[in-house]
């Protein structure tokens, strides 16, 4: 596996992936918990939920996440991008501690340390599996 050094721009893209996903989850959760219970025998109510304000904001953040995620996947492995962007969970936990003044238990601090270690582990390694013979050229599809 050759070592692929990422540029500052590429780290910024990974940062966007990390931040947009947990923020989108938080917005979706806030939106969905405000709605009455949805049942599988009325799937259309899920479609109606998509047009409520919190869900719209969540979807907007998800679009930002998806654009940066696709960009990251075009120059890095899936098994590199996913752990590397898990740092977003830590950002949300730290925001809740220092911005919202929430209490973080010992277990959560342990989780923050483990995620940081995991991100550090994967970030120091190569971002892309380089094969000896390129099978597919740019612009072509599988």
């Amino acid at each position, binding site marked *: 596996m050759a070592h692929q050094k990422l540029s500052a721009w590429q780290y910024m893209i990974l940062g966007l992936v990390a931040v947009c996903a947990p923020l989108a989850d938080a917005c979706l959760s806030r939106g969905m918990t405000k*709605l009455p219970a949805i049942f599988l*025998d009325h799937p259309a109510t899920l479609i109606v939920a998509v047009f409520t304000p919190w869900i719209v904001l969540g979807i907007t953040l998800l679009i930002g996440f998806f654009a940066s995620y696709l960009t990251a996947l075009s120059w890095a492995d899936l098994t590199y991008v996913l752990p590397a962007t898990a740092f977003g969970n830590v950002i949300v936990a730290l925001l809740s501690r220092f911005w919202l003044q929430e209490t973080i238990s010992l277990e959560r601090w342990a*989780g923050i340390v483990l995620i940081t270690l995991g991100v550090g582990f994967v970030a120091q390694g190569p971002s892309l599996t380089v094969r000896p013979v390129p099978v597919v050229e740019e612009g072509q599809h599988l």
Partner: protein
Amino acid sequence: MTIPILAPHPGVWAAAAMIAAIVLCSTAGEVLTAAAMKSVGNLDKIRAHSGIKGAIRAVLTCPLFFAGVGFLALAFFSLLLALNHLNLSLVAPASASLTLVTNAIAGKIFLKENVDRRRWTAAVLVCVGVYLLAH
């Protein structure tokens, strides 16, 4: 009269089924999307050469991309359904941490990625870390 398939406060098996649906659909979607993006090539280079329209065209003319988006859409609606019945503090970390492991396995098998000891360690550390963060 309609009989609800899922109660407002689902049991363990219903909760597990909802989380499993998110994990399976996410894994399929992410592997297909990753395969699509590998076949398209480096988007930064394509954008530098053909502009943003060229980059969008390169992505939108790839059939694998739409297969991936289809599964990701299924994962999204599974997530909405789960969030309607379960707390975010359970759904988000459980699905995120399990998806990390299933993606590492799927990445090795289907994408032939070199999932070395470093990446396995990272996946497991992040997986346990995300779990702990929810408690």
